[in-house]
């Protein structure tokens, strides 16, 4: 909300300048988003009294003035204007003054005569576009005073962000009240021009059938108004406050709303049919709103209607047909209190916001309903003529929000804030409209009707905190507990130490991307109101996000990327439930190793990523089994596997289907993996075992196997055939090509035998070799390679 400084000063005689007021507002809890200065004060222009005026000896149109600006000697000034005479008071720009137009005043000679300043017109002071001569100041203007201060030329507009609990501050007077209470200044009484009530003007027929939602409703007819534009000062104020002038009547009502916080409405009386009723809408009842929308209302919406149709959605917007226009002559004014929750619910249903609804849903001051009606009537009659009838009143404003009391103890508030509550704070609270009584530690506070946000002792503690000032509250460390810290999740940290860059991607993907790796089984979680189609479905696979990031970086000349992400994936579960699964996911594409002085560049392949996953598992004391699976959606058959730890399937790994990769602009192999962290068994902390004392023997055996024989199966067969001394076995060589028959691979196996009780002999090794060779022959038809 925008509040001009000059408008504030109509309610409280603030002595501080706008910068200080901005600081005060912040301290009181009204966030100042900005301070605009549409008009800066002119400095160095002073009130001057013309003591003599004589003609310039060498120029017909110039005069020589002696001007008293309150100093020992009057100034000699050469002036070209004609509208001034001896005894007039005029603004005098003294030497050194910079005028708004950019002119800087210097001492000089004009046609041979000395001039020590310049008498100013409204144009030169930046107050008008044109003028007929000097600005003649009122006779009582104090000689020597700064004209900017005397005319209150300085203007500043505070752009405030009013918090939703402070509906009472969505108007100038509310803000002025806080500032006045804080500064110990009185709040100016609301001025009201007199007007005569004309009994000849009929009182509108109004009834309220929805009294709970509309506890008070005031209506008054004014006949014979001549709707013109509102006065310049009002238009200027409205514009500074961020509102557009519409027509005289609407402007007056907007002005009153901004000034006092009470939204009002005016109907064109000649467009109303019959009586006014405030009632609940009927289901599907139509309403043609002022903003052009045609609404189908819901039962329960609070409406104002006449005998023919709905003329307003109460507290939110009037109808287009019954609004006041430039040709309106008879009006009905409305001033009311609508229940905040009702207004809030209705305006949310229709996504409709108005200045009125913002105030009603935060709660207006019931005491202001009548005052606003009188003030608006007075202004309308004064500005646009017309005869005002008496008020038709339904309900009682005094009964709303009245006499609410909060009882609490001073010590409880002091404990909550951690600071003493001095009695002087009570005085400030009293100036804010509270009735405060202190009996020892007991505090009885009656809350003013406009403070809908204060009802419990904690609310009062906030008021005291604002009054005392948060700066005055000491910073004290509370007693800190010693707890046993849970083991930290190092998942992503370990992956990063393996050479992967951690990324963070959005949890939502497009429906198309979702389908790349997850079948359409109806278990997607879809957003009702997504930002865009590309971010509309909660991801069930981490891979589309990683593919997008890979594409982004490869498009920026990266020869390859190795990415890791930790985050949740989301899916529906049975019985309306859903799962959020903590997942770690990897992606590798392009160069795994650049050209270096010691090695040529190398492209990533399946085993780069598998090695990374194995290393990651090994850091948590786990060993994974990689079970070939050609049926993983989105992965290429023959290069994809399920990852098992023990009997638990914990993840998947493989090469992304080439068409999918191409869809992400990547024509090189892309490898991805994921681990479900929620099902991953926690590795056991290793237990000590004594190290072997006797040396072991190591043997190599090289076999010819059929191509595509699983090395896992081979090694398992070795393990089960090599005998009890086997401690280690691995593939140390893999070769196909020259010297190896078509359809075969040469696979070298290195195994180690060791015993805790003795040194093993060549005979032991020979026996194990023979047993392994027999097993390979029997199980795989493999022959020992010469």
């Amino acid at each position, binding site marked *: 909300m925008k509040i001009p400084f000059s408008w504030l000063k109509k309610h409280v005689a603030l002595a501080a300048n706008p910068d200080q007021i901005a600081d005060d507002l912040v301290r009181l809890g009204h966030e100042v988003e900005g301070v605009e200065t549409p008009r800066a004060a002119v400095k160095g222009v002073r009130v001057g009294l013309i003591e003599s005026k004589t003609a310039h000896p060498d120029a017909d149109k110039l005069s020589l003035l002696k001007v008293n600006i309150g100093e020992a000697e009057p100034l000699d000034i050469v002036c070209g204007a004609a509208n001034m005479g001896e005894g007039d008071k005029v603004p005098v720009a003294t030497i050194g003054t910079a005028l708004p137009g950019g002119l800087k005043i210097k001492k000089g000679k004009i046609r041979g005569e000395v001039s020590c300043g310049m008498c100013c017109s409204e144009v030169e002071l930046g107050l008008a576009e044109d003028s007929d001569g000097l600005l003649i100041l009122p006779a009582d203007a104090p000689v020597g005073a700064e004209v900017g201060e005397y005319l209150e030329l300085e203007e500043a507009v505070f752009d405030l962000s009013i918090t939703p609990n402070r509906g009472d501050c969505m108007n100038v007077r509310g803000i002025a009240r806080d500032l006045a209470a804080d500064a110990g200044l009185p709040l100016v009484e609301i001025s009201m021009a007199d007007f005569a009530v004309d009994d000849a003007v009929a009182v509108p027929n109004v009834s309220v059938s929805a009294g709970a939602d509309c506890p008070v409703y005031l209506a008054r007819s004014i006949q014979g108004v001549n709707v013109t534009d509102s006065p310049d000062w009002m238009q200027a104020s409205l514009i500074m406050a961020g509102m557009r002038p519409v027509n005289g009547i609407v402007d007056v009502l907007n002005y009153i709303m901004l000034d006092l916080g009470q939204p009002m409405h005016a109907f064109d009386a000649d467009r109303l049919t019959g009586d006014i009723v405030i009632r609940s809408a009927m289901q599907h009842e139509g309403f043609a709103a002022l903003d052009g929308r045609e609404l189908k209302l819901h039962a329960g919406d609070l409406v104002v209607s006449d005998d023919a149709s709905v003329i307003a959605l109460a507290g939110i917007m009037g109808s287009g047909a019954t609004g006041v226009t430039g040709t309106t002559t008879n009006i009905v004014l409305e001033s009311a209190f609508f229940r905040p929750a009702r207004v809030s619910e209705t305006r949310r249903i229709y996504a409709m916001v108005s200045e009125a609804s913002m105030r009603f849903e935060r709660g207006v001051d019931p005491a202001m309903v009548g005052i606003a009606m009188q003030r608006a009537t007075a202004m309308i009659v004064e500005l646009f003529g017309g005869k005002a009838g008496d008020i038709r009143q339904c309900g009682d404003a005094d009964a709303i929000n009245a006499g609410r009391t909060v009882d609490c103890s001073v010590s409880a508030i002091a404990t909550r804030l951690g600071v003493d509550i001095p009695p002087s704070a009570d005085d400030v609270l009293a100036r804010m409209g509270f009735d405060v009584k202190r009996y020892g530690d007991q505090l009885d506070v009656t809350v003013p009707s406009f403070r809908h946000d204060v009802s419990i002792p904690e609310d009062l503690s906030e008021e005291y905190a604002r009054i005392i000032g948060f700066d005055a509250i000491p*910073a004290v460390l509370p007693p800190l507990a010693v707890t046993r810290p849970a083991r930290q999740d190092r998942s992503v940290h370990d992956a990063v130490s393996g050479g992967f860059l951690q990324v963070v991607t959005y949890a939502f993907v497009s429906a198309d991307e979702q389908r790349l790796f997850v079948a359409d089984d109806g278990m997607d979680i879809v*957003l009702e109101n997504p930002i865009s189609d590309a971010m509309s479905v909660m991801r069930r696979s981490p891979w589309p996000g990683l593919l997008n990031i890979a594409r982004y970086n490869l498009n920026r000349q990266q020869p390859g990327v190795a990415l890791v992400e930790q985050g949740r994936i*989301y899916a529906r579960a049975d019985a309306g439930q859903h799962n959020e699964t903590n997942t770690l996911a990897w992606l590798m594409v392009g160069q795994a190793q650049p050209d270096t002085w010691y090695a040529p560049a190398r492209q990533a392949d399946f085993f780069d990523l598998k090695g990374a996953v194995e290393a990651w598992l090994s850091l948590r004391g786990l060993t994974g089994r990689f079970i070939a699976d050609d049926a993983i959606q989105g992965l290429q058959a023959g290069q994809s596997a399920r990852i098992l730890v023990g009997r638990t399937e914990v993840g998947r790994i493989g090469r992304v289907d080439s068409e999918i990769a191409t869809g992400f602009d990547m024509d090189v192999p892309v490898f991805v993996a994921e681990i479900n962290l929620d099902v991953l068994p926690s590795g056991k902390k290793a237990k000590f075992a004594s190290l072997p004392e006797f040396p072991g023997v190591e043997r190599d055996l090289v076999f010819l196997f059929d191509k595509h024989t699983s090395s896992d199966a081979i090694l398992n067969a070795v393990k089960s055939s090599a005998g009890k001394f086997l401690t280690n076995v691995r593939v140390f060589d893999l070769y196909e090509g020259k010297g190896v028959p078509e359809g075969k691979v040469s696979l070298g196996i290195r195994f180690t035998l060791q015993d805790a009780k003795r040194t093993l002999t060549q005979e032991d090794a020979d026996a194990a070799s023979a047993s392994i060779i027999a097993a390979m022959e029997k199980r795989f038809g493999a022959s020992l390679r010469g």
Partner: protein
Amino acid sequence: MSEIDALKLQLESLQSEALAAFSAADSLNDLQALRVSYLGKKGALTEVLKGVGKLPPEDRPVIGKFVNQTKQALAAALDATEAELAVKAKSARIESEKVDVSLPGRSGPKGALHPVQQGLDELTAIFVQMGFDVAEGPEIEDEFHNFDALNIPPEHPARAMHDTFFIKDMRNADGTEPMLLRTHTSPVQIRAMKRFLAEGGEPPLAVVAPGRVYRCDYDVTHSPMFHQVEVFKVDHDVSLSHLKGVLQYFLSAYFEKDVAIRLRPHYFPFTEPSAEVDIGCVFCAGKGCRICKGSGWIEVLGSGMIHPNVLKSVGIDAGEFSGFAFGLGVERMVMLKQGIPDLRLFFENDVRFLSRMGVAK
């Protein structure tokens, strides 16, 4: 010339010949060959000794002593030359094995933690060190935990300010409310307190809850997904000054210097009193710059004393216990600490950005 003199002469010339040969040797192998040829079983000295048998017995000890002296002299010269050659050989080897130590070492690709992760780690660690327990909660939430229990009833204007993502065709357990993506980490307050009480706990309870949150808002300064850390403590007589003390400690710890803090009264439905917290601008040391819009202050988080309705919603006696709570945006904290100018950089995941921001200071 007597036999003995002839032998002596022979030994002397052998010695001088040998010493010359030794000093001419330029490898340990050559030297070893010389050692054999002079001192070996069939060496030159042995040959000379064969002549000793021809001497009269009384002369034998004399010449024997002379032979021994020669032998010792040769052995000593051999050892000395050998040591000399060994030193030479080592320097030659060292010279030949010299490498360019300025070449880069062998290494694989270097990983890096995402700056948001680093922020989460650092922030969480500060609170863990202060005795706060870490808690998490679901990101897909019901309205009760995200709003109602936090004192934000349906008609509350604050609800509209949350720009909530709703889930299509998914409702809460009793089917009365739509499900949504949590708009803040505050629902973890409710879940953590309920869990704690259900397990028979009694305050004090101090929790730090990091996590992802979602707002339906997407522009230069807003991301539809971002990270928050929620911190709260419930105990007897927890006060606003305790909140201030914790904020002062934690903000200085995070920014690794004494930062000025300022609390401004504000409004949040779930706290009373509520305060927005500013820190003295870390870019201009409070003098006023473009980033702090000349004010010298930068808003970093929202805080307050937990509203009694929030405590009541989980069954904590608000008369007996009180608490403070605050929530902070992780991206914002990281941006301030590391001078990152644009929120979008976090989610673009340009590997050049990630690599650079992943480097420890």
